[in-house]
């Protein structure tokens, strides 16, 4: 319950915050006009912080980036990659679902007839413009073939704008060169059932 002292000076400032009543003494009290006690109090705070940090450097919140990395969640939406069939070809069937779903209009696909009658089409071109992409992950959701997914890759700085246009070969193969965890992946299981359970169809 509230803590209120027996005597409250009419000059005192009473602060009510939730259940706690804080009584701070009159800010205009003559001895507070010197400010030096308050200054000394402030100096004590900073010195304590510094000493604590000096002897407990592991306790500091700093993440020393290139050596240490923040552990992002498994649904992190980083750079895309195209999944392959066992034969090494892309699983993509050039259905344009992702390009249609893309709000940034950054996916460019040219489809063509596939020689194998089991596979309807395949992409001749599959480009993603990394500078236009807003990393929303709608392409991953839209894909009926689970052919596109995202990784936790976020280090893609470059000196050339051209480097950000990822073509089919690059999207298929870049993960061979760089080890990076899977990020946002297509939903596994019955998506409609899941949506029903969440109440949003």
């Amino acid at each position: 319950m509230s803590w209120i002292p027996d005597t409250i000076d009419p000059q005192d400032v009473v602060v009510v915050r939730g259940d706690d009543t804080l009584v701070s003494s009159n800010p205009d009290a003559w001895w507070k006009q010197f400010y030096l006690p308050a200054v000394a109090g402030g100096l004590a705070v900073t010195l304590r912080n510094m000493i604590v940090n000096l002897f407990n450097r592991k306790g500091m919140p700093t993440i020393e980036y290139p050596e240490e990395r923040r552990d992002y969640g498994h649904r992190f939406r980083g750079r895309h990659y195209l999944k392959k069939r066992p034969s090494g070809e892309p699983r993509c069937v050039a259905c344009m679902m992702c390009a249609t779903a893309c709000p940034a209009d950054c996916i460019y696909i040219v489809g063509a007839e596939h020689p194998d009658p089991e596979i309807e089409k395949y992409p001749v071109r599959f480009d993603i413009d990394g500078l236009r992409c807003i990393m929303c992950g709608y392409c991953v959701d839209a894909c009926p073939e689970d052919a596109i997914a995202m990784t936790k890759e976020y280090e893609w700085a470059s000196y050339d704008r051209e480097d950000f246009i990822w073509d089919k070969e690059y999207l298929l193969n870049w993960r061979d060169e760089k080890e990076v965890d899977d990020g946002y992946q297509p939903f596994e299981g019955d998506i409609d059932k899941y949506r029903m359970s969440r109440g949003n169809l």
Partner: protein
Amino acid sequence: MDWTGAAISILKAFVVFFMVLNLVPVLVWAERRGSAFIQHRLGPNRVNIFGITLFGLVQPLADVVKFMFKEEYVPAHANRAFYLLAPVMLLVPATMTFAVIPLADTLVLGGRTIHMQVANLNIGILYVFALGSLSVYGIVMAGWASNNKFAFLGGIRSSAQMISYELALGLSVVGILMIYGAVQLGEIVNGQGELLFGVIPKWGVVTQPLAFVLFTIAVFAEANRLPFDLPEAENELVVGYHTEYSAMKFALFFMAEYMAMVTGAMLIVTLFFGGWQIPWVSSEALRAAVGPIPAALLQLGSFSAKMVFFLWFFIWVRWTLPRFRYDQLMDFGWKIVLPLALANVFVTALVLYFGQGLLS
């Protein structure tokens, strides 16, 4: 001509100059790392030479290299002559101030008396104040010549601030001058070697506690350090008077600022903390125990330790207190610090006149 004497003088000048000059990068390092640890950060720890970072001490070296090789840029709208003169006007007084600070007791070697200060001027403290007030010209000149509104405002603030606190600075020392009966810094330090009531060192901070507080406040204002860094005030004035300066010219301003800090710390130590005095150990006893040169070195160490503490104090205060508002600064200087300094002089005079035996 006394060639040995001249050589000793030159040597002293060089040693003191390079000591102070090299303190600047170390101070910058302490400032950045210290502030980082106060704010739960790590601070600069990346720059290295073959993997040696020395807790970030290599960073100032990299900064110096950067300053050296940056483009020397003079804005077209600036007044070129004064623009180039201003950093020099600020740095020269800042480097000259250290000449009168005694770093150790007078050394007698082979019949030669060596004062452990670059110049044993008989006007002592007045020389320091004279040069200290010169530094405002550099700042005002920089603000004016840059022809930039932020620089100009910084210059105005600086001049107003310096004038307000110069008086308090001078007046707060008057009590010390009365008690030790000297303006020569060497004699003031000698006077602080005695003991009060046989137990407490007769340091300025004991005999003049109020003067110490006022002097420290005024020194902060003179050195343009927070909470009185209105001439710079990065969030209002970009960086104030040196907004238009780049490369080495900016570095000169930076150096002058830190040198002013060193001057301030040295003055506080000399006037209020016994200078090179080691408490309860008299200079004669020390010389008899370890010989003259080690004694001088020990005293230099004592001086340096006190000075380093106050340099840290400057940094510590900077990362604790917020900046004053302009009118608050003026109010504080004229309505509080100045009257208190005057009252201190008055009370000290009364005590000295009526209670001669009390303090000795």
